């Protein structure tokens, strides 16, 4: 009696769990997984022909769409611009965030009004990218304050001329990304630093280590996992950069550096939703984007992971195994 009750109870517990997680999986399958699979399928399909002529099942075109996409000027520009703008923004973002995080967590400095500063630094991230895009657009348009500065230093010849220059456009985007995200990175890094056992710092200071040494020898190595996390999430976000450059560069108003700040997603959106609605080609570009992002993430993950520690762990395991074998041999 007791045993049969046990089995029943176990089974029903499982069912309950499934019902609870079902909504997520249903939404995920319908709105994420299926489009994802279709993206891969469409990348190899002549979608338009397939759509018009529904009698035939397959319009498989192999790698054709990949070849066309890769040969295109817009594609090359976009695949150059996006990582360049990401790197331009991410390096200062990480450095400033690291600096602020180590100040805020430093026991010796004890920064006053920390909460206030954290809120201020995090603030740009709360605003929508569109708002920020429009804000900066007003700065750089004729009569905007940056435009006026450029006139007064002689970079722009007259008041009716827009600010030109490849690197200016990219710089603006990189700056906005930096400004929007350094607060967020800082908060994440602070959490990482606070997670370090304080006894390490105590022991180090008793041994006479300087603040600089503490930072390099204790803080930095121990927050490496968290830095890997921000680096990889930022990389993925960076490759999908869209809203800010689109606000700044898509309108006729800023067509001046449209080509210099066109990102991959802007390019994909352009070919998918204008002209002849080349969905298949857009999917091919998306697949390439996915592959590049995946490869870059893996490389970063490999570079950032603590190889010495992993090696040590493997060696330890091997020793234990050998020891066990030896013991077994003895018996």
């Amino acid at each position, binding site marked *: 009696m007791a045993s049969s009750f046990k089995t029943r109870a176990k089974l029903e517990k499982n069912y309950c769990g499934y019902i609870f997680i079902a909504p997520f999986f249903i939404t995920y399958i319908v709105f994420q997984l299926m489009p994802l699979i279709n993206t891969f399928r469409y990348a190899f399909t002549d979608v338009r022909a397939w759509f018009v002529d529904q009698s035939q099942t397959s319009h498989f075109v192999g790698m054709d769409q990949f070849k066309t996409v890769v040969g*295109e000027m817009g594609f090359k520009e976009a695949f150059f611009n996006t990582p360049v703008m990401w790197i331009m923004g991410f390096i200062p973002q990480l450095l400033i965030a690291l600096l602020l995080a180590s100040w805020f967590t430093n026991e010796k400095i004890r920064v006053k009004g920390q909460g206030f500063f954290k809120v201020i630094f995090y603030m740009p991230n709360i605003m929508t990218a569109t708002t920020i895009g429009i804000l900066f657009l007003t700065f750089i348009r004729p009569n905007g304050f940056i435009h006026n500065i450029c006139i007064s230093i002689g970079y722009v010849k007259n008041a009716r001329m*827009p600010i030109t220059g490849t690197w200016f456009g990219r710089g603006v985007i990189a700056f906005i990304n930096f400004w929007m995200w350094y607060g967020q990175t800082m908060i994440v890094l602070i959490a990482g630093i606070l997670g370090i056992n304080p006894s390490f710092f105590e022991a180090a200071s008793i041994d006479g280590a300087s603040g600089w040494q503490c930072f390099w020898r204790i803080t930095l190595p121990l927050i490496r996992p968290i830095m890997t996390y921000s680096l990889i999430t930022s990389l993925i976000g960076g490759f999908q950069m869209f809203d800010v450059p689109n606000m700044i560069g898509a309108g*006729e*108003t800023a067509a*001046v550096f449209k080509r210099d700040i066109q990102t991959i997603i802007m*390019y994909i959106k352009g*070919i998918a939703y204008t002209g002849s609605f080349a969905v298949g*080609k857009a999917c091919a570009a998306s697949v390439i984007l996915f592959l590049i992002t995946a490869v870059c993430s893996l490389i970063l993950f490999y570079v950032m992971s603590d190889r010495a520690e992993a090696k040590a762990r493997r060696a330890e395991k091997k020793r234990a195994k050998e020891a066990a074998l030896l013991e077994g041999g003895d018996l």
Partner: protein
Amino acid sequence: MNKLKRVLCGTLALAMAASMMTACGDDASSTASNGGGTASGGSDSTGGGASGDKTKVKVMTFTDETQTMLDIFCADEANKAITDKYEFEVSLESTASTYIQNVLSDLAGDNAPDLFLADADYAKQFAEQEQTASIADLGITINEDDYYKYTLDFTSRQSDGTRMGLSHQAAPGVVLYRTDYAEQVLGSKDPADVQAAMSDWDKFVETAKKMQENGIFMINGLDELKRCFMNNRDGAWLKDDMTYYCDEATVTKFFETTKELADAGCVQYMENTQWTTNWYNGMQDGVFCFFGCTWYLHYTIKPNCLTTKTGDVDADGNATAADADYKVGNGSYGLWGIVQGPAPYFWGGTWWFGSKKCLEDGTAEAVKAVIEYFCVNDDSMKAYMEKTGDFPSKPGVAEQLSSNNDFLGGQDHYAIFREAAKNVNTKTTTMYDDTFNTAVNDALIEYIVNGMSLDDAIAYIKDKAAETITDMK
């Protein structure tokens, strides 16, 4: 106890799932009621009974003008037979790319619109759709000679010339100029004299330089002359077999004319300003002429030339003009004149289409009635034009219209438009023109602002267009 737990668990899970579903449901129904709310308001005002037993006519549009027009249709006692039976459900999407996408995908499915409208940029594309009904399918008979030919040609199927859509308006392009500057620099504000000063592009540039010497900009932005030039190309961008063709002579002339104006300081902003704040600001002061058209006169330059606006604040937070603001002395109101300009062209228009679905679900009667009311019937077309100052697609109706427009200092704009509409030629338009217009805009900026060579800039148009038009050769 265990049973209770189980029941509780199950209920919770169900509630969660249900709340998800209702959340979705709420969304859909609220948008539907948003779209339909105003529509049923329109029919209520005509004293229609319970809306539940009326057949719904699904209307998709890109402009809020459609709702106004349908309200006028419903308010007319003559249409009582239709409004008693049918109810219009309007869904409005004003972002062009989204609207095109919505219409194209809806047309192919079960939820197809019965009646849908198109702007000039994509009317050709809609006319080519399999699910679009022709005028004849809808049972509308027209006398083709009664229309400005281009409004019919524009939405005819490329393969066999079947007439697919009808327009209530024609949109011939003109040049709007400042009478006060004309008097100051050219010595006369008479339309004939101004036309003589810009009858071809050389004279246009000459006049521009004179204006510049007096501190007046000839045009506001680099893209101002685009439509006038692009409408007069000697061939379509794409031939029937999708081969690319560029009328290099016209494009070169356009680029060089604009560059000459830019270099001589005759252009206020060295950027594409159409539909931007800088464009609207230019209308208030400092710029001699704008390339506009029929609807442009009423909906674009009139409200934007005003400096004092006392009306409500719109969704973007800008003040709108109240009726009392439209008076001489406010901004540049009353200081404008109209001439044909260097070359005839057209700009935009609104076309009405019925879908094949309306033939099946029994709403064809209503679709036919609405299209006939605005696009075929002379009296109702004239009444609508008189109400809005718009320009009709039928020359016969246009003949009967005249205006004493205080915005134009008493000039009758219909007289100019009638002449301009005769010369409009849309032979070179294709459904891909929107893509090419954007490409030309970008190439122009590369050439004038970013210092690209003329040959490269012309080649750039093709490269740029090839990205989005996949089967171009």
